[in-house]
């Protein structure tokens, strides 16, 4: 029970961060600090070196080696944090000299934390939309196949088997590479969502079909028909509600899969274009050995993905058998 709460809390936290991105991010997506390329995180502090307490402050970074991109903290300078300025939750009082970089900056000098929370919108939004699409499409097709039976069932299920046996990532790669390399962000979003939905559909359809098929044989479905209910009513009012629990569980497995899929596609350069922030594009830009050795903060999108996927798994694990009600 507690782990489920923890999981739900993690997911809600990520969703809230995505929702509140403009207020939460100290900087705009594309704001660059050219003097601070690959700078480490500026950690907010309360106590200075002499042990005196202050309101939250940060130390600015001072460039040590331009070539190696190493920095050291200027511990003699304290830069106060300001709250609720410029409609942002928190930012530095001296943005030009000492910007607040909670998760450091990337190779172009952009704030990783700001990009992370904006990226959550893209990545989580895409996963949610694609899952919803897969649930709707798979639910409709599965219910139709299970209820109609016969040749309709055969056709739909063989088509779904076909999609199922194709390695999903290759399908996504193939379809994406058939389109122009450079597309605007919204087109990419819609396109990726459509591909993911199609890939997820067979999993949903198979389960829904099995449930609808089993339930349709029960007398309560006959009873509804005997009362004069049409096919649509029998299906929507009686049979599909039986699949509700399955659909919830299915959605929670699809969302993490789609988050990872977006990251994978973006990582190989077939995801979102530059300028759009998503967890996948951020990881793509961080794909150098130095990210692991010297700039680990660039891998924070991977950590964020881990947290969200873990949260979803925790929140929906050990579901007790669905009660009759």
């Amino acid at each position, binding site marked *: 029970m507690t782990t489920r709460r923890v999981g739900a809390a993690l997911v809600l936290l990520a969703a809230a961060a995505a929702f509140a991105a403009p207020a939460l991010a100290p900087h705009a997506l594309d704001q660059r600090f050219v003097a601070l390329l690959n700078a480490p995180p500026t950690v907010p502090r309360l106590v200075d070196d002499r042990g005196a307490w202050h309101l939250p402050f940060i130390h600015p970074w001072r460039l040590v080696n331009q070539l190696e991109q190493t920095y050291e903290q200027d511990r003699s300078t304290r830069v106060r944090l300001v709250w609720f300025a410029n409609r942002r939750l928190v930012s530095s009082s001296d943005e030009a000299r000492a910007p607040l970089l909670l998760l450091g900056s990337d190779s172009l000098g952009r704030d990783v934390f700001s990009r992370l929370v904006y990226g959550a919108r893209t990545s989580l939004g895409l996963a949610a939309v694609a899952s919803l699409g897969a649930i709707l499409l798979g639910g409709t097709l599965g219910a139709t196949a299970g209820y109609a039976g016969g040749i309709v069932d055969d056709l739909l299920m063989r088509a779904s088997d076909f999609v199922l046996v194709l390695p999903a990532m290759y399908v996504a790669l193939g379809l994406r590479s058939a389109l122009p390399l450079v597309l605007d962000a919204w087109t990419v979003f819609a396109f990726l969502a459509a591909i993911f939905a199609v890939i997820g559909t067979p999993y949903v359809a198979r389960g829904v079909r099995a449930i609808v098929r089993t339930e349709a044989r029960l007398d309560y479905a006959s*009873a509804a028909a005997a*009362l004069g209910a049409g096919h649509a009513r029998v299906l929507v009012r009686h049979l599909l509600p039986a699949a509700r629990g399955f659909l919830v569980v299915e959605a929670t497995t699809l969302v993490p899969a789609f988050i990872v899929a977006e990251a994978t596609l973006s990582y190989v350069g077939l995801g979102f274009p530059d300028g759009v922030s998503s967890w996948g594009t951020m990881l793509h830009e961080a794909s150098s050995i130095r990210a692991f050795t010297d700039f680990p903060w660039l891998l924070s999108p991977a950590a964020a993905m881990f947290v969200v996927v873990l949260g979803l798994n925790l929140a929906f694990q050990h579901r007790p058998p669905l009660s009759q009600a």
Partner: protein
Amino acid sequence: MALVEVSHLVKRFRRGGGLLRRPSTITAVDDVSFAIDEGETFGLVGESGCGKTTTGRCILRLVEPTSGAVRFRGEDVLAYSPKRMRAARRQMQIVFQDPYGSLNPRMTARQIVEEPLIIHRMGARAARRERVAGLFGLVGLDPAHLERHPHQFSGGQRQRIGLARALALNPSFLVLDEPVSALDVSVQAQVVNLLMDLQRQLTLTYLFIAHDLRLVEHVCSRVAVMYLGRIVEVGPTGAIFAAPRHPYTRALLSAVPIPDPDARRARIVLDPAAVSREASLKEIAAGHWAEV
């Protein structure tokens, strides 16, 4: 005039069959004819798989018959358009055998009993609620339990909910498909008595499908005995129980348990060779027909 008239009803099911294998057909109902008079309880008995349930479902077109005719008040039900059929369903309803599978577990008792009223757009919300509570009382349930789900009721209570649902549209004809065979014996009597009371109260006509012959003897005015998809004997209950003519009927009646441990009665074992598939129904006494 008969309320329900079934003539030469045939239902074949296709089974199996694939890319290379031809499907086989099973004849579940094989040229069945009978007529049910208004207000009577017509029994349909036979062993499992003999086609009694399929016959009942064909009459309501829950299963589409392969051939034959079903007439309700003289009109051919099988020729009805879907719209006309939907309207006709207000007149004929069914109560199922399984009190567990016949109620949607995700709906409350109120939603279950109210659904027919919604489907046929009968009354506003308040009127419907009143009617549902009335039906609940009619079948002997406590209207305070309307918001419960089926699993919170006992088998007998569930069967009463199914009955309330069937009665919601004020039908004149009910197919009772083994309505009490899934219930405890003590509960069976209560539900059977309720069915008989309601029949008098609401002038209902019943097609009573059963395999419990003592029950049939108690409830039905006329009985048809089905064997392998055919009616082998039909007549007034008294006549059939007193003087069964068909070998299958005799075997069936000899299998009725006698609640007396000292009683000994020779059980007749049916010799399938003794049953002629060519024979046709002949009237052997007034209203008593048998395949001999």
